[in-house]
């Protein structure tokens, strides 16, 4: 039986008393296990049921239940090979817990490829899904985030897969950010129809007529953070380059700003601006979102950044809970089955 955390805490699970715990890979990531355990304990204190997955005798778990897994897939292990070779790894066991109905979702800050492989090989694909895709929120100051997918699961894609990404991304945008009829854009090198390579041109024609997708046409990289589009679809190679470019750029800008404000002659101005800048910093901070989500597998799978802090883990766990509560996987199943039937 899953043990509940003791103490006087806000009981989110009072609303959903039967929610299965979130399986947390305690050993994934650069800051594991300490940051992962700290995040898991904090999430549990909010009333979110947690099932830690880690080695026997793991210290610092508090009252949280532990699913014992004796192996760890390292960051540089080959993803598919390691899932097959390390069958008692924390990642594989976390995915199996979701498959076997012992957990409602899984989250890991470990090897991204192995997390995907674990989810794919253990939870399986939702029927009709050709390829799962990694969807990541891109911050939009003053608005809800833009969903970018695929952010790295499939380096090369087929046009039909991108249409499925658009469908899945739309469901995610609806369920996570409450967007009613998400505007879908195809990332290209110009806004005009006909811009881009063969893949983009073929995908454009499919998206134009695809039912259930509010396709607004091509969008460019500069549109990602402006709020003009809710879901941006691209292949995994491009998506990953875009994501890393954005992350690096934002980090540099924020660092430079704070360095500038750190100069003594600007101290008063900095203090006056901080109330405006700190919320903006939180909007731009990846830790605020807790990571990306793997869409298209038959379960909720959150892929957190390798350098995830405890705060990032808390937010990732909250995201997992929200997506379970919102029925996101079932909504994707219905959306995909509708297009397959047509």
């Amino acid at each position: 039986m899953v043990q509940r955390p003791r103490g006087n805490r806000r009981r989110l699970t009072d609303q959903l008393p039967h929610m299965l715990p979130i399986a947390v890979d305690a050993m994934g990531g650069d800051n594991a296990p300490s940051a992962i355990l700290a995040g898991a304990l904090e999430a549990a204190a909010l009333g979110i049921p947690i099932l830690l997955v880690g080695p026997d005798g793991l210290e610092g778990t508090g009252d949280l239940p532990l699913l014992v897994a004796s192996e760890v897939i390292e960051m540089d292990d080959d993803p598919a090979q390691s899932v097959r070779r390390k069958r008692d790894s924390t990642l594989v066991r976390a995915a199996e817990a979701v498959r076997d109905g012992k957990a409602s979702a899984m989250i890991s800050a470990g090897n991204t490829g192995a997390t995907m492989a674990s989810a794919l090989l253990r939870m399986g694909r939702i029927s009709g899904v050709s390829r799962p895709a990694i969807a990541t929120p891109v911050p939009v100051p003053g608005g809800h985030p833009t969903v970018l997918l695929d952010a790295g699961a499939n380096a090369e894609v087929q046009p039909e897969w991108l249409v499925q990404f658009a469908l899945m991304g739309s469901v995610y945008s609806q369920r996570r950010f409450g967007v009613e009829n998400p505007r879908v854009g195809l990332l290209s090198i110009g806004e005009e129809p006909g811009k881009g390579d063969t893949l983009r041109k073929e995908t454009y024609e499919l998206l134009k007529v695809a039912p259930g997708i509010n396709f607004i046409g091509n969008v460019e990289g500069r549109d990602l953070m402006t709020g003009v589009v809710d879901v941006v679809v691209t292949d995994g190679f491009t998506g990953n380059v875009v994501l890393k470019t954005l992350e690096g750029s934002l980090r540099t800008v924020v660092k430079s700003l704070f360095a500038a404000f750190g100069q003594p002659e600007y101290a008063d101005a900095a203090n006056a601006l901080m109330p405006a800048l700190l919320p903006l910093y939180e909007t731009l901070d990846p830790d605020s979102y807790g990571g990306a989500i793997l869409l298209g597998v038959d379960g909720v799978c959150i892929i957190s950044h390798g350098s995830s802090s405890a705060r990032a883990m808390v937010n990732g766990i909250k995201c997992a809970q929200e997506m379970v509560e919102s029925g996101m996987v079932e909504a994707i199943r219905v959306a995909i089955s509708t297009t397959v039937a047509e």
Partner: protein
Amino acid sequence: MATIERSEVLATVCRQLAEILEISATEISETQSLADDLGADSIALIELVDSLEQEFSDIIPDFQFQDDDLSGLRTVADAVNYIVLALGK
């Protein structure tokens, strides 16, 4: 080690392939090419290999497809023969 007929191995391979490719097992014959005839890509092959390893690991201790051998799995018969060979050892 338990004895399994080749026909049973074939049935298992076809069943797993059918589930992965979302087609009927009756559409699969052992002479078919995994990639060219059945459209199984690299992801599907990994799913097949993993599912067969799990399926047969109770019968064949430590059964695994060796990574160097994966490129040789071109047809349904190749996968069946691989397992039958492992059963015979």
